[in-house]
């Protein structure tokens, strides 16, 4: 599997208190551990098991993921921001790797 690549979409600007939509997508096989290879051996599980989003260090959204989630997990959620700052998105892989992305937003 190629190195998972996170993509996020955050508005560049917003007004204070406005409800903004955040979209995230990461490329990942989300290998469930239930499948077998051509020799009949189980393919070991490797999924992203946790996703978090923080704004200026404060939690906005987080969730645990289980093997039934399909490949390339997509999350869309909303947030209100009172001040300019940075969203930090983190995905945690079963193998311990983390993939992160940051996006700045300016509140006018």
């Amino acid at each position, binding site marked *: 599997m190629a190195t998972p*690549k996170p993509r996020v*979409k955050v508005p560049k600007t917003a007004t204070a208190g406005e409800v903004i939509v955040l979209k995230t*997508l990461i*490329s990942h096989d*989300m290998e469930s551990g239930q499948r077998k290879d051509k020799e009949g051996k189980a393919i070991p599980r490797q999924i992203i098991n946790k996703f978090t989003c923080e704004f200026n260090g404060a939690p906005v959204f987080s969730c645990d993921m289980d093997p039934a989630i*399909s490949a*390339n997990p*997509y999350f*869309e959620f909303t947030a209100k921001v009172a001040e300019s700052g940075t969203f930090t998105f983190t995905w945690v892989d079963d193998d311990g790797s983390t993939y992160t992305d940051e996006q700045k937003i300016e509140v006018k």
Partner: protein
Amino acid sequence: MKKISLAIAIAASAFSGLVFQASADPVDEKLVIDGQEMITRAPAPEGHPFDEVLSGWLFREAETRAAEADSFANPGMLGVERGEEVWNTVEGTAGKSCASCHNDAVESMKGVGAKFPKWDADSKRPIDIELQIDKCRVENMGAEAYKFDAEDQKAMTAFIKHQSLGMPVKLDLSEGDMQAWFDKGKETYYTRTGQLNLSCASCHEGSMGKYIRADHLSQGQANGFPTYRFNTGGLVSIQNRFRGCIRDTRAEFPKAFSDELLALELYVTWRGTGLSVETPAVRQ
């Protein structure tokens, strides 16, 4: 007693050829991708069995339709992005990338995806985008042809076809022996195969709009390939789809890019004449 008579009624309807069906129509909605409206309904070309050709998008569930309408949410765009990387990567003994000759694909590949398969005078057979990429790789780059359905083959095909997003499919059947190949593809389309004895037309022409178990049968158009399928979590090529369909009739399926499947690709693509290229479309 009531149960028995119901069973008889079902049996009778099955014998009379009426398949137990939940009929449903394609949705009456517009597909707009990043502000650009797609042609999902087009008047059929002359000689077509339908009056109107319909995009498979109209037959899918609301969530699936929404995923295609938003290029960010569309996971097939991961493949398109990978294709762009490959486009700019030098491979082979000639030290060239696609971009070395074709520069910016946004300009040079615009419209290409709406015209393939087209006649290839060198090999004297129709050529689809996958084979055109291989031809370029072997003849101009000194690189190896892709193995069928290699991730990069699907990504490159999706990337090139995506440059024609929204443009109507229009094939040129006048060149070379295209008409003979078209006729061959048509024959394959209507030939029943497998233990289930089904032809392409059994489902996608005769039963279009009906349900086959939980699946809503579309016209089986090619305009969105390679498509992203949630089922497999990846891009699916048109030749793979053909093989899958033939396998599902419980027949032996031909090799990818064989004369039989190439002719079928040509004919099926023609059946979607006038529809926008939707690559990468999103399906269940």
